[in-house]
């Protein structure tokens, strides 16, 4: 079998601070340059390019037409898409390579949150603008909350999740502490404790400033090739063993709150493809979306890592810690590293690739053979993507 698809290069540009010295095109250029260097390729080797960006977050329509030059896609059969998380680019790229195995496909995504005000009213209006204009939007526009619609909606599902599983605010705070510690492995001076998380600003109970990921600027490029072509490239390729993506109902009133059905179904497809029956035993490391602390736990449940009634004991036993049996977000996740909306999905992939290659300096978990990356579209969508990656 020579037609499996591999990740042959990764390039990430991210920063906890606003990146003001580069435009979004330049950010993407640097990420792509890194990925090409990683794979030992040049621009002329690229056959096809895919980017994923969100128009309304970028503030320009057809925002993906501007990314073409930065990813070396000029006069190539570029196939760009938007309105999806970057991880969807990986799925489309996978299918491109399967449909034409001779191709080298570049998948990229960029987000410059610092060009807008992530906490401002404009962004909160945007959340309402992603609802259908007849039923849900008028209700959401009527939410007069200075801290924003996003937190209110997140609080609703967090409450539903806590009610169902019996988890407490302290347990959610532990997730935030774990991820913040993971993100700063060498930092012994500022011990991060639950106390600090529970004392952070309340946005909409139980959502606090520190149980919600902060938006950051980032760009990520991933290069895909068939197994046959990957053999000739200089970095260690990582197999894509399974992919799955899925969306639940968009109409909030009709959707069950506090569960992530979309993640469950996406994982179901990915596991089926990868031949995984016991994800809790077979997966060595997972990077899942922890946009909010409760979301990490909700996704772990939907991914089949544990049952709803086991979450509490797993937190207490440290199953998801870096030293645990199934490390989740050993890189620090979104809570620790920041959330580049739309790009963080691809960054999760890059993190898992580094772990499998054994190149995750400071964050490395030993003996990772099979890793999982997950991404969720954020409030108010119910869109998820799952990729299972394996060692060469």
């Amino acid at each position, binding site marked *: 079998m020579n*037609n499996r698809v591999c990740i042959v290069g990764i390039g990430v540009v991210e920063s906890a601070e606003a990146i003001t010295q580069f435009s979004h095109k330049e950010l993407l250029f640097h990420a792509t340059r890194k990925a090409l260097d990683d794979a030992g390729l040049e621009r002329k080797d690229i056959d096809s390019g895919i980017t994923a960006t*969100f*128009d*309304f977050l970028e*503030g*320009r*329509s*057809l925002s*993906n*037409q*501007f990314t*073409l*030059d930065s990813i070396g*896609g*000029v*006069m*190539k*059969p*570029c*196939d*760009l*898409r*938007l*309105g*999806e998380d970057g991880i*969807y680019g990986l*799925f*489309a790229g*996978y*299918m*491109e*390579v*399967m*449909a*034409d195995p001779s191709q080298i496909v570049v998948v990229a995504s960029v987000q410059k949150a610092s060009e807008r005000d992530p906490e401002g009213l404009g962004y909160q209006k*945007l959340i309402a*603008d*992603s*609802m*259908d*204009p*007849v039923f849900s939007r008028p209700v959401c526009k009527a939410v007069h909350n200075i801290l924003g619609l996003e937190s209110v909606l997140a609080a609703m599902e967090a409450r539903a999740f806590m009610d169902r599983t019996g988890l407490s605010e302290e347990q959610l705070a532990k997730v935030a502490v774990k991820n913040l510690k993971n993100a700063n492995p060498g930092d012994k001076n500022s011990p991060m404790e639950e106390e600090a998380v529970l004392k952070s600003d309340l946005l909409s109970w139980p959502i606090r400033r520190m149980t919600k990921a902060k938006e950051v600027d980032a760009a990520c490029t991933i290069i895909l090739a068939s197994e046959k072509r990957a053999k000739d490239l200089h970095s260690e390729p990582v197999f894509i063993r399974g992919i*799955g*993506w*899925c*969306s*639940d*109902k*968009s*109409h909030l009133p009709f959707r069950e709150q506090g569960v992530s*059905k*979309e993640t469950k*179904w*996406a994982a179901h*497809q990915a596991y089926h493809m990868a031949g995984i029956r016991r994800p809790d035993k077979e997966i060595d490391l997972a990077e899942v979306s922890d946009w909010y602390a409760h979301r990490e736990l909700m996704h772990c449940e939907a991914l089949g890592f544990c049952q709803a009634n086991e979450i509490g004991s797993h937190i207490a036993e440290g199953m998801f810690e870096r030293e645990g049996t199934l490390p989740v977000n050993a890189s620090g996740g979104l809570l620790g590293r920041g959330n580049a909306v739309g790009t963080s999905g691809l960054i999760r992939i890059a993190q898992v690739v580094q772990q499998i290659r054994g190149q995750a300096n400071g964050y490395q978990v030993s003996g990772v053979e099979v890793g999982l990356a997950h991404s969720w*579209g954020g409030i108010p*969508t119910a*869109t998820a993507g799952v990729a299972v990656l394996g060692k060469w």
Partner: protein
Amino acid sequence: MVKRVAIVGVGMQKFEFRKRETVEEMIFDVTRDALENSGLSKDDIDAVVFGSAVDAFCGIHNSDKVAIDASGGLLKPTMRNSTSGSTAISTPILGYTHVASGMYDIVMVICFEKMSENHAAQAVFNTVYDEAFVRPIGLNVPIQCGLEARAYLHRYGLTERQMAKVSVKNRGNALANPYAQLPMKLTVEDVMASPYLSWPVKLLDTSPVTDGARAVILASEDVAKELDDDPVWIKGVGRGADSVWFMGRRNADLGRLDYAYLAAQQAYDMAGIRNPMAEIDYAEVYDPFTYKEMQHCEALGLCPEGGAGRMIDEGISLKDGDLPVNASGGLQGEGNPIGAGMSRLCWCYLQIKGKAGACQVPKDVNTAVANGWGGMYQYNAVMVLGRD
């Protein structure tokens, strides 16, 4: 092993300005129509691919997400593609990739656009340009295309009268199309007398602002042969894209669409077509402006480079001509809901199947080609259909 992919059904709907239906309802209608035409149920669909160019038209962030329920894609893999106007063809190409890769057997492709829900479509179009250099000039599509049309006419020595003949042909063809928004019986003089929007582009050289949707169901070889004795296969696909910075391209002459030639070459190579002029029986090309049809006919090799003027003068592209182009009326006559320009592909399918009704051309159609164009003179996507 790359799988063969066939079209097993299309879903149509009338194109209108200010449609009463919401985005969800529009999508429900075409989904239902496509399922009925193909004899499938929504449970048979493995995955859904959406195509819509500009969210700002209908004012919904991620407008495909609100329509997932209406498309039968609930808790199934759904994906959204957007390459401006070429969404019309690059979305079915993404659907093709879903099936050709072996991931899925039956894929629903839905393209939609609700352009009339804002106060002015051209004000929305201004937001597609570079915010530092181009947007402040107040550029919009007619101005952008006026520049390109001028360069094109100059490069090949073509005339505005030849452009006008395309408008007369397409709007006239639309008279037979039950889904058309703007069928008109015109003369060349009517078009020439219409006001200039951006010289040399006149009002009747353009296409209208439209709401509408189209659906296409794609299937793998096994499924297609079960549903249909003589399926319409996707024989070739091709895409090309040039730099967004059109002043700095290798070929700075706007008159020649290098990226469209690139896309057509890929599609024809894949389909094994060497002489498109002789081997293509029917074409639906992207004609938001009259000169675009002429440019695309050249890029697709339906006439020699620079020969599009003679093609229309000699009546080759008329409905009863040797190589009919846009017998459905094209975007000019049928309406131009950017992404839902996938209608071009639907009509190729209907012509090959002999189901085009009053639009059916009076010749055998075995091989047809459709294309889409969009962006800052930037993208082109080409698809070749044919039977065995």
